[in-house]
């Protein structure tokens, strides 16, 4: 696990962006740390529900990236200041009130980057 202080990683998550969808959820990320790449997602967890990489989509600049599109050999650029939306599908997870969200993403330089936040719906 890369030693990036948690409070810094948390800045990527856009507070108040969590939305309940028909069959899942969505929330927004914004890169305020520095230019970098995402080479995949290990999982996204909302409350007790874990979404496997196949159930995770990342939408940026109108383009949709699924687990098949992103890998160590084909990372996607996540520029400083750029925003994107994570959509998770297949199960309901969002409840009213406080929700716990954990994202484990992969970065070619830093390895596993884990983000744990809470957001209200």
């Amino acid at each position: 696990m890369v030693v990036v202080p948690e409070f810094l990683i948390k800045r990527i998550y856009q507070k108040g962006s969590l939305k309940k969808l028909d069959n899942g959820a969505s929330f927004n990320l914004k890169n305020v740390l520095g230019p970098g790449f995402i080479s995949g997602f290990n999982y996204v967890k909302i409350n007790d529900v874990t979404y496997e990489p196949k159930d995770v989509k990342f939408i940026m600049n109108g383009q949709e990236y699924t687990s098949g599109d992103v890998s160590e050999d084909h990372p996607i650029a996540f520029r400083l200041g750029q925003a994107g939306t994570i959509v998770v599908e297949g199960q309901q997870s969002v409840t009213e009130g406080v929700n716990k969200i954990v994202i484990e993403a992969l970065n070619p330089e830093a390895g596993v980057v884990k983000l744990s936040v809470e957001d209200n719906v």
Partner: protein
Amino acid sequence: MDISFDKYSLMVDGKRVFIKSGAFHYFRTPGVKMARDRFQKMKAGGYNTVDIYFNWNYHSAKPGEYDFTGIKDVRKVLEEAKKAGLFVIARPGPFINAEVNAGGLPFWLLKMEDVIPRNRVGTEYKYSPKYMEYVAEWYDQIIPIIKEFDNVILFQIENEYATDSMDEGYMNELYRMARERGITCPIFHNDAYFAGLWADCVDIYALDLYPYINPNQNWKQDNFCFDTLDNVEDIFRSAKEGSPPFIAEMQAGWFDKWDGSGYGHIREALGDEHINIMTKTALSQGVTLFNHYMAAGGTNWGDLACDEVYTSYEFTAPIDEFGVIQSNFYKAKEINYFLDSFDLTCTEPKDFDFCQENIYAKMRHDNTNDCDWLFIRNMGINQKINEAEGGITLPNGKTVVLKSCDMKICPVNLKLYGCDIEFSDVEIFTRLKNENEEAVFFISDKNANIYLSDGTVIKGDKMDFENYTFERDGKTTQFIFLTKHMADRSWFLKDRMIFNADYVLPNGAVAVEKNTEIAYFDLKYKFAKKNCIVNAYPNNPPLEQLEISSVKFCSPEIDLDYDYSGWKKIEAGGKTDAFSCDIYDEFIWYKAKIPDYLTEITLSARHLFAVYVNGKEIINRNSYKLEKLQEVPETISVPLNKTILTRETNELTILVQNLGFDKGFSGDTNSPRGLVLFETTPQIPVEFYVCEKLAPEYTTKFESDNPYLSKITVNFDLNMSENVFFAKYISFEDFRCRRATIYLNGVKIGRYIKRRHVQDKFYLINEFLKPHNTLDIIVWEKDRNVKSAWGFKSDLKNVKILLGTFKICQLFK
């Protein structure tokens, strides 16, 4: 020296100084002579400061013991820096990273149960009083030495540190400890996350910037990698009021790893463009203190390396591992010389209404020279914005032609003695100046022009030394043009220029590798010439095949009935890893007795290992594996049977090669090494005896029965003339063995391990060379295709070991 600062720059004795620093590792470039060589080259290249990490682990092998003698004498290193005319940025950690073993923390410290290295577990802050006691001990050793040198202008505490809670206790204590021990210069920390971390705990806020850290990345294509650098002034201004912009580590290369893409690839990928863009963009952001990491590469000799890196720490630095100047040095030199000629320590951003895709343009007003500087960069891929396309048209109506990934610093309204430059995209190389006269050297560029304020346009397509003179009010300005090739071979030394030399020394000596006509220029005598005749050295010295003087089997430890009674005993069932055994050498031997009824052994070792039973190898494995920057432990089970366990009580030998401890940036420095796990089926307690080192001198008298480790010995002589710089290497091209450890005159200088990419040239570190040399190469692993020991030995006798020369230069006073 009185060191102060304001929001613009550092001041030495009240005078603003632009800090142009480069990193140098004395432990990777051992000895005073090598330090002197690198420092003199740095000074010749326009650096005025050297950044030095002090490696705690290198000086302290045991608790309470510190060695600052011989090649570990840092006083002498600091003396050489001072003699070369360099300021020093002192970085004694305690943790330094630098891809050194355990990040520079002593091994003995890591094993102590009540010590929490760096007061951090994972990302969680945990204060450890015992750790701080040992840090105080280190500071008590190193700070008095640093304090002796008044050219130390900055002092760093910790390195790229962060925790989840960002508790300031540790950093505040380090600051206090440094001050209590007499450090008077400004103290800083290098924030790896450019997030203003620890700004309140130090005097000057500084950060690290490495836009290119993945060699698979094409930075020219992914040009947004400079996003942070392009906005770094805002980061500095919001991090700490009154602190000058300081990039404590500014990328000037990158390190290669096991299974990496090779230094050749990284050097080619970065080219000269990267250091040019990094440095000029930093200037465009008001940076007045930068430190090129690294300025000079080094070698992971001995046990210096962390597990991630191999022998070479070439780092694609401007001065490479061998002390040879590379093309990115010339680019750094151009910028350093420019900064020597025009003081940019006090500038302000200035509005510049310009926007074009892939073009970065930033204007700064220079309060000292009362002019503006336009910093302009073209990041269009394969996009040369040429004259036919109209170039880049600026708001002032001038056009700039820039190659893809090129960046220029253009003077705007620059007042000179004899003329005023309205605008120029012919870049200034350097300037000589006295009270009435100045010579401004430009680097010729056929697509660029100098626009004078009187309407004169001078095209940049000039030959070497073409010149123009302008006079005004009894003062003169001379423009002198140099082609890029000549600029690379031109050197600015105090009040004169020296042309056509490979490099120069601060005392005026010139280094050349072939017969050369050296030219000099100063304002008083103008041009002069001198011939330097070098008859002795061919341009490309041929590789010399070294004659093998002997091949011996050299692992008696594996032989049956070897006497290991003097080895350290580990109680049955006790832990066998390096920390538990208190053995930190790269190689650890384990011996034990095992009964004949065992059916299996299961073991996990870091990183390479082989198991021998009754003198016969049963497994030989490289367990080193990194995935997503994390070490992947491997556990192996080896079945045993009666053909292996041939005796009632059998002799077990395990040899483990530890490639180094984690450097501690993203992993734990105290991850175990050596034999980490050993179990038997059925489970029985096994009593091990352990011993460290492969020592080439072990077997000068006796040869072992087994062929698993073999020592190839080669002797060679060298002409060690004074006033000659040379860099020698041995080459293992066509080397058919998979692993070898190389000793030069008894000093371990390299490890050859065949993986996806392999280092096959090893620097014969000058410090360890003598007129008569012995090279011992210990090969571990008998080629499986060779059936007999005799045949194997015969093959080794025919191995090609080539002696080569990277560079040879003669120095003329």
